[in-house]
Each structure stands twice: as C-alpha cells, then as structure tokens.
C-alpha cells in the first residue's frame, strides 16, 4: 500500500562515490567523528574537535576552534561568516563563536566574537542554531525549551542585545528565520508545537501553528520561490507552514531523521523501515534518502545509504556524508535527459511541468507538447492530442498537425486546432479555407457564426476566400454577413441574389453603397432585381438617376460624395432602360418620373417612353382612356425630344395615325401624308391634305388625281374637286388629265365634262383674245407705218398755236418737232435735255429705248434662262418669251441720230420695234 500511495519515482541524480584526488581509485576519506557540518561560500565546513574546511578540489584544512568539541556550525550563505557552538571545558558550558573566514589570524579565521549561550541563569545544552542572513538576528535553541534571540550585529558584542524568547518544557528542535519583504518571522518547532514569532513587530507576537512538533533536524525552510514555507517532518506527514497558517501536508511515511531543502528539492532522510531488525547485526544504520519535487509531485531520487551524517548542497551537487567516512556526490541530470526519461514513460504532463519549473525555453516546451500530442494521437486520444498540438502553435509547422488529423478524418479536432491557429493570427488562407470547410462539414453553424463574428476588430483570415468557401458550402447567410462586414459588395450581392434570393435586402444594400458602386451594381443586377422586386427597384433607380444620397455611415467605406457635387451623382437614366425589359409598367413609371424631374434626359428615355405610351395606347380598349393616352403620346412627340426616325418607325409600328401624320408634317413629307391617307382610303383626307399642302407641293394634286383615277370605286366627287383645283391652278395640261382619268374604268365622261368644257371655253376665249390683240397690233402697226410714210414723204405743217410747255400762245421764236409738239424757244431751251429731241416725247422714248437695251443684254444670260425655265410651271412660255426677245436673231436698236435721215433699212427696224412692243404687252 505504501508503494501505491507514493509519487512516481525517477532517477534524476547520478550517484558517485567521491574519490581521493591524489590517490587514484581510493575513496576520499572524511575526518572521523564529525559532530557538525554545514556548507556555503565555496566550501564544506566540518566540525569535530577542529573545524575543517573542505574545498572543491577536496583540500582539507583545519583549525582549532574549541578545546573540546564543536557541536553546531552555521555557515552564512551570503557572508563569509561562520557561527559555531562548541565547548572549551567540560560540563554544560556552550560557547558561541563567530568567525570571519575571510580574515586570517595566525592561520585560522578571525574570531570576531565569543559569548556563552545561556538562557536565563541555568546552563543548558544547545539543541539548534540559526542565523539570519542579514546578520542582525541569531537564534539558539536549547533542550530546556527556551530560545535565545540575539538582535543587532551578531558579529560584535557591543551592538547586540540578547533576550530569551520562548520558554517551554519541550526541547527546541528547529529554528528558521523567514524574511518576506520587511517582515521577519522566526519559526520555532519543538517536540510538541510549531510556532511562529513575528520579529518585525514589537513584543514579538507569537502564533501557534500546529499542535505537533518534530524531532531534531527534521525541519527546514523552503526557497523564497516556494514562499519560504517552514517544513516540519512529522512521522506521518511532512507539513508546510506559512507564518500565519497551515499549508498543505504530504503523507510521506517513515521515521524522519533529517530534512533539508535545497534548490527546489525536499531532501528527506528516513530510517529504512525494511530492515529495522538488522540494527543488531549491522554496526551501521541503514538510511533512505529521498529527494522530492513537491511542485511537480514526484520523487527525483531515492536510495539507501549507510548511516548518513548529513546531506549538504554545494558546488551544484548534493554531498552525502556517511558515518564511515565516505562521501557521495549526487549529480543532477540535465533537463533534457530528465525529459527524455519522462518521455520514455509517456509522462508528458509531468515533463511539461518539469520543463516549466526549470524555465525551459518555448522551443523546448513546444517540442514536449508535440511529443505528447504524438503520443496521445497514437494512443487514439485525438481530443487530448489536439490540445497538446494547440500548444505548439507558433513553433510547430501547422501542416504537421493538419495532415495528421486530415488523414484520421478527425474534423472535430482539426477544427479546434485551426480555431486556435486563427486566434493567434497565425493562420494563412489555406487554413481559413480548411477551417471553414470543417465548420461546414460539421454543420456547426453556431461555431461558424462565432468565428465570423468574433473577429470584430481584427480579421485573421482572408475574407474573400472565406466568402467563397461559405458560399460553396451553402452557408449563404454567413457569407453574406462577411461580405457585408468587409464591404465586398460584389460578393454580397451575388450571394444575396443568386443564392439567397433575398432581393429586397440586396436592394436595400445597394441603396447604401456609394454612388459609383451602386450604379455599377445596379446595371449588373438590375434585371434580376426588377424581375423580383419591381417597385423598390424602380424607386432606387429613380433615386440613382436623380439625387442619390448615401445613407450616412451605414456601409463601411461609404464616403460622402454628396457634398462634393451633385453632378456626379446622377446616373445616366438611359443606361438603365434595359433593366426594365419585360416590365413596361415600371419602366413607364421610371421614365415618366425621369422626364418630369429631368427635362434634359437623354433621347433614349424619350424614345422608350414613346414606345411605351404607344404600346399602351395600342392595347387600350377603353376609348376614353385611349384618348388620354393618345394625347400623352402626342405631347411627347411634340416635345421635340424624340429622334425623328425612331419615332416615325414606332408610330408606324403601332399604327398611330396622329403621330405618323404629325411626324410627316414635321418632316415636310407631304407626299407621305397623302400616301398614308391613300393607303387608308380616306378620300376626303386626301383631298384635305392636297388643299393643305398643295401650295407647298403642287404635284400633290396630280397624284391625288392619279390616285382617284385608279380607284375603281365611285369617287367622282373627289375627282371633280381635284380637277377643280387643277383647273384653278392650271396644274396639269388637260391632255394629261384625260390620260390619267382614262385609267379609271368607272370614271365617266360626265366627271370630266365640266372640266373639259370649262377648259375648252377658256382656251377659245384665250384664242379670241389673242386674235383680237393681233388684230389690234396690226392696225397699230399699219397706222405707224403710214405715219412714217407720211413723215418721209409729205411736208409737215406746224399749226400749233400754243406752246406745249407753257400752254400759252406760241410766239416767235418757236421750236417745232415732227412729232407735232411746238415750244417757245425759251421754254424749249429751259426744259429740253438735248436740242434734237422733243422734251415731251423724250421720257416715252427713253423708256422704250431702255427696254430694248435691257432685253438685248439679258438675252445672253443663260443661267438666268435656265433658272427661269426650271422654276416655271410652263416652260414653253418662257422659251417663247426668250424667243420674243430675239434670242435667235439679233435685235438692233435704231435711234434717229440727230439730223441723220433714216435709211431705207430702217423700216425693218421699226417693224421690229412694233413687234417687240406688242410682245411685251402680251406678256
């Protein structure tokens, strides 16, 4: 049972017998009869009669300290001060001597102080001794139960006070000073009690810690790193004490002989319980030395020795002195060796603890964790293994672990590992992908959520990859969350629309994006959105195309463009039109809105709107509504914002008569208008159109006539109306009219009779008129000729009695002209421009002359002629006119030179002039 209740046992120390350095192979022999020993300051101090110093090179030196014997030694660790108790004379008369081992006095250390150790007035045996390292306290315990405390510089008589602290009946068995900060405690243990004095408080208050004590040399103080606890080894247990209370206890069985605390180890010497009966047979006692590591709970070494005097720690090892003069050394193994021993036994937890208490570096620790993990993994404890692997993060290559668990299909563990990796920000994109895959495989959406959402401040992973993975795995809402949080708009929308089908949400999201992104995304996803949530989409589009404002701060990365100019913030509405495919109603609303708020919208907007209105119009059954729609469409056409061609095509497609006509008119396509009516067989409209536009384009009438002529139906009324107009305006030669009408099988003569009669009448009238004129001109010509003849041949009698100029009776001198005018000479002179002409006839003559000259000049202006010919609707008359002007025969102008007689040829010229005049009149 005892074995079972013990800690694990290791051999962390190598035991060797110390050899004599001079004589090879021989053991080193200690002086005989050692009664006290201690160590420190680079040497071991032994005391019998002499005080011996043993150096590391095993050189012994000694000096005589007492005359009889040395009973106690205390070597301070921080000062070269040695305190001894011994006897110079027989009887009970202990003397305390304080030595300074640095100073020499004739070969031996300098003794700085000697005083007798006597509590009260009765001399008693000293049982134990302790000195505070600050040299201000020394305590001496006596077998009668009292403790003498010396305060002040203990190396000098003068400066110290001595007082008796503790009186009791039980022999004092142990003393220890404990310094913690400025507080000094003295632990005192006797056979019955454990007590503690607080020396830093006046009166030295005492606290009883326990009601059992221990034997001599069975108490010690732990290192400050162990909280400087007082160790008391009772027979059943080893107890630890704080100055004010009990601490833990350890059930280490056996009769304790000696307790030491060195360098983190508890050294416990017990009597060998297995051979208590051998005492008689063997001259020496068997002792068991056990070295405990209380922190890590194991036995670092345990071995039996013959009758040990003491165990000392010096030069980094433990030295065991035995009664038979031998000295053993226990050399501690190095940490690596120890760890390997633990590994061999698979005691990884212990190894880890040990490594920590030995302050092993991180690499070393991580190696232990890895080995532990490997071990657990092999054992099949994957959960445990992953815990260990997680602790290697940062040192061990993650792929090592990941591969292991991937092979084993331990997704759960792998997840834990990857999580830890991410927490420490050591994960790369692959790790993220893997982790997310793990989550999705495990269907652990809550963890997934936590993972995604926990990384509020920092992102340990590649967001894009995460989104992709999540999306693939069908964790759309998570992907969306990520995308939204990290402003991956594209992804957000893609998932929202393609996977989640959450159109409203997507729309709302777009609405919060900065303008450019909103615009791009809208173009991209508009169709889908329109398909599913038309109203809201339209609203957003309207906003986008008019005054888009980002809702402040709602989306990461949104920046306030609004202030920098609204011009930027209007999308081109035309570009969004395709989005509305299949949804004319919304498109309609959108366009109407656009036109209303934005008069300068792109043409596409108007075109599209027109198309829509026409469609509506075309499909509308209710005449009233149709009327309204028609007005709307027309007003749009009239707004002049549409493209003519497109609008025309649209109107034609939808048979929108008013629109078509309007457009024709606008485009001056009068023929088209008429053709349109013709096609629709609306005769009255045809006629109307002719009336309307006939002025601009005369051939309309002809066409109308041709149209009606071809009509098989009875449209005489129209024909006659058309004919009237033709007639009125003399648009067509009658022959042509007849020819045209001849096509019509139904048109009877009666239709044309009036026209023809009318025409013929006028023709004949004209002829008569012309003939009359001819006659008239002939007569005139004859008169003129006869007059000329007369002037040439007979004498002219001037009978005028009055002056043509002043109308008063003629007097001499007077001037007479052949033309029959007579003037006073003075009248003539004051009026006449030239002497040869009659002032009265001159204007008339000049007029005629000018006319002739002008005609003569114009005759050669061919361009002008051409123009006139083309511009006129009766080319013949133009040609005739020119002919009349003498285009073909030279027209010579005959003037009567003053005083010159007209030659015989001049008659001809006169004739021609007559002809000319006549022609002119005729024109």
């Amino acid at each position: 049972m005892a074995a079972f209740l013990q800690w694990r046992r290791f051999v962390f120390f190598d035991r060797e017998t110390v050899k004599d350095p001079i004589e090879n192979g021989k053991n080193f022999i200690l002086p005989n009869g050692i009664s006290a020993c201690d160590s420190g300051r680079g040497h071991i101090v032994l005391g019998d009669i002499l005080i011996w110093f043993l150096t590391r090179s095993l050189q012994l030196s000694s000096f005589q300290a007492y005359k009889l014997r040395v009973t106690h030694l205390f070597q301070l660790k921080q000062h070269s001060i040695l305190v001894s108790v011994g006897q110079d004379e027989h009887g009970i008369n202990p003397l305390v001597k304080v030595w300074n081992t640095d100073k020499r006095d004739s070969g031996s250390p300098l003794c700085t102080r000697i005083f007798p150790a006597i509590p009260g007035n009765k001399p008693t045996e000293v049982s134990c001794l302790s000195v505070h390292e600050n040299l201000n306290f020394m305590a001496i315990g006596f077998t009668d139960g009292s403790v003498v405390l010396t305060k002040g510089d203990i190396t000098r008589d003068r400066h110290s006070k001595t007082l008796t602290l503790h009186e009791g009946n039980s022999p004092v068995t142990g003393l220890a000073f404990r310094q913690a900060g400025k507080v000094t405690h003295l632990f005192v243990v006797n056979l019955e009690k454990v007590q503690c004095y607080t020396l830093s408080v006046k009166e030295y208050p005492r606290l009883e810690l326990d009601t059992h004590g221990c034997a001599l040399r069975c108490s010690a103080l732990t290192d400050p790193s162990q909280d400087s606890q007082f160790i008391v080894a009772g027979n059943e247990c080893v107890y630890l004490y704080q100055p004010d209370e009990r601490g833990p206890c350890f059930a280490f069985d056996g009769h304790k002989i000696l307790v030491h605390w060195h360098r983190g180890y508890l050294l416990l010497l017990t009597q060998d319980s297995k051979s208590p009966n051998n005492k008689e047979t063997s001259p020496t006692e068997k002792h068991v030395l056990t070295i405990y590591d209380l922190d890590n709970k194991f036995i670092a070494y345990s071995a039996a020795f013959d009758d040990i005097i003491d165990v000392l720690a010096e030069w980094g090892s433990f030295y065991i002195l035995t009664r038979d003069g031998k000295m053993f050394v226990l050399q501690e193994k190095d940490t690596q060796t120890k760890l390997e021993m633990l590994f061999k036994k698979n005691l990884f937890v212990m190894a880890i603890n040990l490594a920590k208490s030995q302050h092993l570096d991180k690499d070393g620790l991580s190696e232990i964790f890895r080995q532990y993990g490997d071990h657990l993994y092999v054992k099949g404890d994957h959960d445990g293994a992953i815990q260990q692997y997680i602790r290697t993060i940062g040192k061990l290559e993650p792929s090592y672990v990941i591969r292991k668990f991937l092979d084993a299909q331990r997704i759960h563990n792998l997840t834990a590992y990857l999580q830890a990796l991410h927490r420490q920000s050591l994960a790369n994109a692959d790790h993220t992908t893997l982790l997310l895959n793990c989550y999705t495989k495990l269907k652990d959406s809550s963890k997934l959520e936590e993972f995604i959402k926990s990384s509020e401040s920092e992102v340990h992973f590649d967001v894009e990859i995460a989104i992709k993975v999540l999306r693939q795995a069908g964790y759309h809402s998570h992907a969306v969350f990520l995308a939204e949080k990290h402003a991956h708009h594209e992804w957000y929308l893609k998932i929202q629309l393609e996977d989640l089908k959450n159109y409203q949400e997507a729309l709302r999201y777009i609405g919060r994006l900065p303008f450019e992104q909103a615009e791009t995304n809208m173009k991209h996803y508009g169709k889908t959105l329109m398909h599913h949530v038309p109203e809201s989409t339209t609203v957003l589009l309207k906003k986008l195309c008019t005054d888009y404002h980002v809702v402040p701060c709602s989306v990461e990365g949104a920046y306030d463009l609004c202030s920098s100019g609204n011009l930027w913030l209007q999308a081109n509405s035309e570009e969004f039109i395709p989005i509305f495919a299949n949804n004319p109603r919304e498109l309609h609303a959108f366009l109407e809105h656009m036109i209303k708020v934005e008069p300068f919208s792109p043409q596409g907007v108007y075109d599209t709107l027109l198309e829509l209105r026409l469609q509506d119009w075309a499909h509308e059954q209710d005449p009233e509504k149709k009327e309204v729609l028609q007005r709307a469409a027309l007003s749009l056409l009239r707004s002049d914002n549409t493209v003519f061609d497109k609008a025309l095509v649209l109107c034609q497609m939808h048979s929108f008569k008013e629109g078509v006509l309007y457009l024709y008119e606008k485009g001056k396509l009068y023929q088209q208008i008429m053709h349109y009516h013709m096609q629709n067989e609306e005769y009255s409209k045809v006629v109307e159109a002719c009336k309307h536009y006939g002025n601009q384009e005369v051939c309309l009438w002809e066409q109308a006539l041709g149209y009606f002529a071809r009509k098989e139906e009875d449209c005489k009324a129209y024909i006659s109306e058309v004919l009237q107009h033709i007639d009125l305006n003399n648009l067509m030669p009658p022959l042509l009219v007849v020819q045209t009408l001849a096509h019509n099988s139904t048109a009877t003569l009666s239709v044309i009779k009036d026209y023809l009669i009318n025409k013929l009448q006028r023709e004949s009238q004209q002829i008569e008129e012309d003939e009359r004129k001819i006659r008239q001109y002939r007569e005139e010509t004859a008169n003129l000729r006869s007059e000329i003849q007369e002037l040439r041949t007979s004498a002219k009698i001037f009978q005028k009695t009055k002056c043509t100029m002043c109308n008063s009776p003629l007097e001499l001198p007077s001037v007479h002209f052949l033309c029959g005018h007579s003037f006073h000479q003075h009248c003539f002179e004051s009026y006449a421009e030239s002497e040869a002409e009659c002032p009265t006839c001159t204007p008339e003559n000049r007029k005629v002359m000018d006319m002739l000259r002008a005609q003569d000049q114009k005759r050669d202006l061919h361009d002008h002629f051409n123009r006139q010919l083309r511009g006129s609707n009766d080319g013949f008359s133009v040609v005739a006119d020119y002919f009349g002007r003498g285009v073909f025969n030279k027209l010579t102008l005959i003037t009567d030179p003053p005083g010159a007689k007209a030659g015989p040829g001049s008659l001809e010229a006169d004739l021609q002039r007559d002809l000319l005049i006549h022609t002119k009149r005729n024109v």
Partner: protein
Amino acid sequence: FVAFYILQYYITVILKFASVGKSCLLLQFTDKRFQPVHDLTIGVEFGARMITIDGKQIKLQIWDTAGQESFRSITRSYYRGAAGALLVYDITRRDTFNHLTTWLEDARQHSNSNMVIMLIGNKSDLESRREVKKEEGEAFAREHGLIFMETSAKTASNVEEAFINTAKEIYEKIQEGVFDINNEANGIKIGPQHAATNSSLAGGQGGQQAGGGCC
C-alpha cells in the same frame, strides 16, 4: 462592520483508484483550468482565492484532502477549524455515493457542529455514464441537511457557485452570530492586515467526502 474574512475549508478526496474530482474542482476554482491527468492527492493540498460577498473581500482557503482510508487520520485534523466543507461524490460511480454516509459521520464527528456542508455531485458532464440520479443526491442532501449541487470540473459548470454558495452560507451564519468569530477553532479569522474591526475567519472544516470505492 467591515470584514475581511478568511474562510477555510477542506474537501476530501476519497477514492483509491480514481478521484471523484475534488482536486480538479479546486484547480478549476482557483486557477480556472482543468487538468484531466491529476496525480492522486497524498495528504492535503491547498488553494486560496479571494472572493467578494456582500461587498466584503473574503479570502477562501481551501484544503483539498486525500480520499484514501489510509490518510483519514491525517485529514481528520484538517476538519477541525474549518467553517465549511464540500462533500464530493462522482455521479458516474455509485460506490462513491454509497460511502457518503460514512464520510459525513466522520466529518461531523471531528468538526465544529456549525460547519456548513455542501454535497457535490461532480462530473455532471458525463451524463451518459451517470449512475447516480440527481434526485438521489437531492434526497440525500435533504435528509442530512446539506446543500446540494451538481458540478463539472471539466466544463467549470457550477464550480464557482459551489464554492461561493458555501462561502455565502458561512457568511450568513456569521451574521446570525452562529459562529464566534473570535474563536479560531471555528475556522474564521479577521484578516491580519486590516483594521482591527475586521474579522475573519478561518474556518474550516471539513471534510467531506464523497463516495467511496474501495480497492
């Protein structure tokens, strides 16, 4: 009345083969960690933690006692002077529950009669291996005037509550004057570093135990 209390109490570890988790409970309470592999307690271990009850700082000193029969004599001495105790059994092992009576008698016999005892059914995370129903634990607690709670040292469920409730119970008893705070044997002591009016206590008693299996 300002108070700085020190309450001390023990938990005993009872089994020889496997612990019912007392040491784990303590570790969870004082260090907030769980160590599944735990060497068996030899003797008595010790832990402390500051808590605040009713605005007062209280230092809980907790003794974790060994559960084996062979240590009973050692651990008994720790019952004395404890103000409270946690008696722990393992819900996955009926034998640990069956031995409760023995341990309870032992604790009552060696402790202050006012000691607050809480019965703890540990390892509540191992529901699938449960052998002792929660109702049984409750019934036992009622019968013997104990407070009852099920805990899991592994998941830390109820661990905090178990210790703190015990401390509260002790605190209430102090307020009611049941404990004489000037008698250290009650396990309560006024904190030494505070004003004279502080009282505290070390209390402790306890041992308790939980189940018991024998080898």
